[in-house]
């Protein structure tokens, strides 16, 4: 399927999704989000892919949503188009998704970042929710995902004031994983992706599922899920290989089965 607003490419076992509306700082429109989600799902099904990287360009990851597209919406047109429902499918992706952020990640752009599992940012990257200044609010998970990431009080402060946070602030608050030199965002993200690609893929997906329920369900439910996933890992050849390699004091060679 041809993509209008994103570019996709694969290097080794890493699948890339590059947002590609450079003339509008990669502002997200509905078609673009559909394309992102479809590509995430395609990579998730593709056996040759082990990690997915979402990236923008040097100036912007994505500077918000396409305002013109929604300016004339009414509650009913929104209800019928249900533009945010497609975002829910991002939460079902089982492989690791890393966002590589240079420049601005605002509004919908920040929401896309927060839907990723790991986040690498350049030193001058900026994150924020300016929606309040347009008389609206985040609608694609911003209030929920930022609160889970940095706690209610800091989330309220940022979303209420519509002020952006620097990469260092975001790192200190635990909203992102790593801050690197702007020029090295891709190199460092690929290095991180390659480290993940060396781990046992079955472990990675079982860990992702368990960690993701940690702040969703009561502790005992989470414990049970963790335990089941732990047991499930023992059905993989990688578990045999990993433990064998450990006893033989050699590096393991994982196959993802």
């Amino acid at each position, binding site marked *: 399927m041809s993509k209008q607003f994103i570019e996709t490419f694969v290097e080794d076992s890493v699948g890339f999704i590059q947002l590609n509306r450079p003339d509008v700082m990669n502002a997200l429109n509905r078609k673009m989000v559909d394309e992102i989600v479809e590509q995430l799902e395609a990579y998730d099904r593709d056996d040759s892919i082990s990690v997915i990287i979402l990236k923008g360009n040097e100036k912007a990851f994505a500077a918000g949503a396409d305002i013109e597209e929604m300016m004339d919406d009414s509650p009913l047109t929104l209800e019928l188009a249900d533009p945010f429902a497609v975002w829910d499918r991002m939460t079902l992706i089982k492989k690791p998704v890393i966002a590589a952020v240079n420049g601005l990640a605002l509004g919908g752009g920040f929401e896309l970042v927060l839907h990723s599992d790991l986040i690498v940012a350049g030193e001058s990257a900026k994150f924020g929710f300016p929606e309040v200044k347009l008389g609206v609010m985040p609608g694609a998970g911003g209030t929920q995902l930022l609160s889970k990431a940095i706690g209610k009080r800091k989330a309220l402060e940022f979303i209420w004031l519509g002020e952006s946070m620097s990469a260092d602030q975001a790192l200190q608050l635990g909203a992102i994983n790593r801050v*690197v*030199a702007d*020029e*090295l965002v891709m*190199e*460092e993200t690929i290095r991180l992706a390659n480290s993940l690609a060396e781990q046992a893929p079955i472990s990675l997906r079982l860990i992702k599922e368990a960690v993701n329920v940690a702040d969703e369900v009561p502790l005992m439910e989470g414990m049970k899920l963790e335990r089941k996933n732990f047991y499930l890992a023992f059905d993989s050849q990688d578990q045999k290989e990993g433990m064998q390699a450990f006893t033989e004091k050699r590096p393991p060679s994982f196959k993802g089965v």
Partner: protein
Amino acid sequence: MDFQTIVYDVNQGVATVTLNRPSAYNAFTEEMNQEITQALKQASRDDDVRCMVITGSGKAFCAGQDLQGVDENTNHATFLRERYHPMLKALKAMPKPVVAAVNGTAAGAGMSLALACDFRLVKPGVKFVSAFMNIGLIPDSGFIYQLPRLVGYAKAMEIAVLGKPITGTEAYELGLATEVFEAETWDESVSKFSEKLAGMPTKAISLVKRYMMDGMHLPYDELLEKEAQAQRLAGLSSDHQEGMQAFKEKRQPQFVGK
């Protein structure tokens, strides 16, 4: 760009900003803060510029905030946030070396401006004066961040609180000034110094600038990681290739700043 309170010119890879309100000893006005900020951004973007010099016209370098504009209704915090902080942040973000050519008295925020630059050149008799305490204020515009990092805490405390003027010669002895140039040969000496800087590997200088000051408050491991990234970038620069090549060929390198 047309400036009213400063003169901006570019020559031999060096952009010179001359604070140009000599009748007021080049004291800062809101317009001057803004124009310096614009000049910094312009010089950052201009590939022909590989070094910046900030100096004053007439007798003084800069007398600090013009007190004409300050009265009992002034909110000093707003003043700093709106006028000085954008200038100081632009100076910190400037990816090229910035030299304060301190031609005369640098007082108050004028001293802060000189401290925020990467190098200070002085005449023997010029004076640095932290005038703030005399009017019941604290040294501002980054002064209390920069000074202890430049001369150590004890000396910085003396200068900030006791406020005894420091001459150019004393500034050199304190490690605050890089060179002392005599008044008679001042212009040529400043040009020679800044043109030499403009011929150096600018990208590598910008990386030192980007990480060394922050390194003074970062944990060792974090700084080592930043250093690795910075060296990776320097290693990718054309100037590194040129430097290696020139070394092999036993000739002087011709750096292009990239």
